[in-house]
């Protein structure tokens, strides 16, 4: 067995409020554990088949096995023993088709950010609710992910559905940073010639956009189809959209504001043709170079999770290089930099450039900081009259350059080619439903 090949298959994965688990079987080895098949039998037949009295203590759990829809993970289950669960992938696919599970968000919330359950109805109008009000921005809004609740047959009720708001501590931090970024851009008088591209893990991209939404128009571009075994955990992003929806629906009062494009930062997550993974990767859907020009964009602030890690994602190289050639400044901003105090070297450099050298250095630092450099992370680009000292760092000096990429010019559709079957699997189902296809069940998705 090589290190690179798939030597194991994921036979079961759970991530719910009651169980986090993964079980593997070796490829090419007869499965030791009988497959869980989820059809036909009932609780009673399971009990009879196994013989309740003969079962050792741990089997008590199995005897409680019933059809369940709990904690956001929907599993329609009754156990039966399949005699020939063996090493061929058709059987594996058949088992996956039988074990009907849907994604479940990690940090579910009963309400949206406003403490309302109005999201249940709002889920069905998500695409329309989040559409930019400016006509010239609307063509760039991608509604594939925001259409999922409606396409998956969401009924506007929590019961039995995996669709629900989600918010994690990191998302709340991202929201705060989004608000800070909005305040600083507002304070500096940023206008429509600036485009902000949020390229963070999906939920944080969404939360940051929510923090920016009442200052700048937001354009959602995520197109990854949710799937339990998706390369991209876009169900988490959808959960964030439902949670932050009321804030995302806010509109800036003034038209001349920067525009914010929201990307799924995990859209190109690693994938190596694993049999048990659904390939819902995508390439960014942003305006073309010409379209950016038509929108009046002269500056692009590319927001990534970390400062200093300035390499853009592979699918953006050509666009960014083209923008630079067209005279558009593309600069990098580490998300965690927002709201942070300036580095001492920056303060010292600015102080030296603006004040007599005879002053005590400690006084220079304090004076400089108080004189308006809490927005240093934006000043350093030289866009707002700052950067007097010429101080720079990797983020400020970032320039897109042509390079080879792992995707080599390919594009990915977010799983759209399997949209129909996946949507079918994501829909609501009765507790005893059987048959049909689920994700890659027999359809070859992700292989």
């Amino acid at each position: 067995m090589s290190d690179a090949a798939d030597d194991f298959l994921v036979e079961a994965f759970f991530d719910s409020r009651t169980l986090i688990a993964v079980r593997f079987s070796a490829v090419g080895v007869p499965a030791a554990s009988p497959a869980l098949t989820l059809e036909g039998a009932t609780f009673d037949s399971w009990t009879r088949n196994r013989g309740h009295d003969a079962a050792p203590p741990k089997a008590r759990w199995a005897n409680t096995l019933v059809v369940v829809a709990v904690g956001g993970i929907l599993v329609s289950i009754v156990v039966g023993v399949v005699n020939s669960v063996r090493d061929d992938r058709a059987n594996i696919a058949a088992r996956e088709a039988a074990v009907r599970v849907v994604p479940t968000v990690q940090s579910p919330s009963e309400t949206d950010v406003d403490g309302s359950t109005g999201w249940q109805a709002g889920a069905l109008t998500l695409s329309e609710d989040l559409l930019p009000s400016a006509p010239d921005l609307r063509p760039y809004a991608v509604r594939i992910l925001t259409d999922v609740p409606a396409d998956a047959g969401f009924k506007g009720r929590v019961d039995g559905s995996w669709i629900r708001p989600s918010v994690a501590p990191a998302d709340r931090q991202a929201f705060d940073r989004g608000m800070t970024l909005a305040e600083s851009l507002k304070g500096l008088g940023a206008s429509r010639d600036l485009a902000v591209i949020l390229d963070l893990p999906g939920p944080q991209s969404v939360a940051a956009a929510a923090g920016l939404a009442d200052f700048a128009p937001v354009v959602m571009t995520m197109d990854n189809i949710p799937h339990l075994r998706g390369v991209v955990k876009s169900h988490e992003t959808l959960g964030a959209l439902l949670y932050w929806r009321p804030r995302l629906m806010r509109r800036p009062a003034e038209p001349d504001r920067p525009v914010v494009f929201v990307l799924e930062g995990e859209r190109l997550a690693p994938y190596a043709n694993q049999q048990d993974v659904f390939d819902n990767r995508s390439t960014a859907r942003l305006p073309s170079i010409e379209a950016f020009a038509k929108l009046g964009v002269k500056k692009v602030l590319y927001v990534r999770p970390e400062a200093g890690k300035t390499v853009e994602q592979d699918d953006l190289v050509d666009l960014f290089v083209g923008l630079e050639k067209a005279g558009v400044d593309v600069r990098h901003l580490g998300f965690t930099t927002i709201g942070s105090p300036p580095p001492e070297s920056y303060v010292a450099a600015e102080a030296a450039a603006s004040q007599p050298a005879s002053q005590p250095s400690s006084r220079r630092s304090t004076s400089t900081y108080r004189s308006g450099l809490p927005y240093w992370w934006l000043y350093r680009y030289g866009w707002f009259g700052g950067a007097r000292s010429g101080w720079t760092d990797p983020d400020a000096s970032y320039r897109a350059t042509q390079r080879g990429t792992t995707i080599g010019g390919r594009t990915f559709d977010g799983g759209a080619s399997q949209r129909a079957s996946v949507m079918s699997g994501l829909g609501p189902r009765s507790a005893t439903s059987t048959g049909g296809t689920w994700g890659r069940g027999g359809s070859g998705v992700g292989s």
Partner: protein
Amino acid sequence: MSTFFGVQLAFESKGREDLRAELGRTVREHRKSTNVLAQRQCWSRAAAAMSDFLPQAVIGTWDLLRDGGPAAYEEWASGLEVMAGWPDADFGRGGSLVLVSAIFLVEAGSSADVTLGETCDIAEAAFHDRATYARLAKVFPMLNFTQVQGSGLYIAPGEGLSGFERSVLEGEGFEYLRPVRG
């Protein structure tokens, strides 16, 4: 023929709120481990986490079965996986115990089987000593994963609940769990 090896420990999460988060992360990352190298790396991480949290272990059990290994594996797996459907009330109220289980099925007579045999060669009086569980956890990444036919890692409850109430893990269905000593 195959050999079954399983370890189950209930950890007190009070004061170690990072316990479940770390183990949960391990499981989620483990899910990507579809080759031998990745399996070893992830079981290394699981072993490290279990060892790190071992002072919090309260009750536990372990098994090495050379007869009926596949049946034992199936029994543990199905018994644990059905917990995904437990109602919250089955975990008791206000509990803080987190049940962590690791199961393996290895090729009989293989070097992995021999390794397990040597590791589990423990005097009965020390079966449930903390040091024994430390020894057992350390064996996870030492297995030859080309001879591992199946494995599973389980954390219950998930991060949506506080934990098991102690009386639940001392009650019906969990009678086999023993206090961890030392």
